[in-house]
């Protein structure tokens, strides 16, 4: 039963990794590819870690698995933004008006 859970989760993780790679190959532009990579791969890693979490011998290794995934998420959240930024067109967002933003479109003050 436990093994079945592991098999299902790791298989699902592999599918998302495959989706990430396929997106990296198929998507037409740099930013779309970055979408595929960031979301699919970290989900894939999370599912693999979840699948293995029921196999570890003790709670210490379970928490270590969580820590590994949390670090991967932190790194992904930061690098995705940084790489997306250097690949972004220059001058994007330079005009003061927000295009779609704000529920009311009004200037918001920082608290």
């Amino acid at each position: 039963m436990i093994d079945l859970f592991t098999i299902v989760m790791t298989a699902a993780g592999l599918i998302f990794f495959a989706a990430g790679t396929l997106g990296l190959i198929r998507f037409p532009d740099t930013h779309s590819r970055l979408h595929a990579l960031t979301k699919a791969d970290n989900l894939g890693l999370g599912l693999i870690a979840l699948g293995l979490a029921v196999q570890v011998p003790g709670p210490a290794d379970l928490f270590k698995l969580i820590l590994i995934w949390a670090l991967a998420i932190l790194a992904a959240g930061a690098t995705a933004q940084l790489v997306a930024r250097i690949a972004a067109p220059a001058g994007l967002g330079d005009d003061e008006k927000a295009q779609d933003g704000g529920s009311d479109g009004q200037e918001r003050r920082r608290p």
Partner: protein
Amino acid sequence: MSSWYLLVATGLLLTIAGALWRVWRGPEQADRMMAAQLVGTGGVGVILLLAAMSGDWAMLDVALVLALLAALAAIAFVKSTRGEGEGDPEDDTPEDRASEDGAPR
């Protein structure tokens, strides 16, 4: 179970091989760099599976180090694309720059 772990790990290696194609192809430096990020994430996955397969959970430390340092190369890369390798990718206007002597030691 260990056969299954290796099977999934082999699948992950194939997705890594796909990422290698994107490193080779580019065209942007950002494309190459993020494909390397994919290899890093996939590598963490493979190591987790190898740990489960061998039952030697000390291998998790290798995955931990890889996950911890995953962002290092990407940060060095984004820094090298702005200014003379010392700037911030979000730093577009001179007045955004930190003033005077910068950070405390």
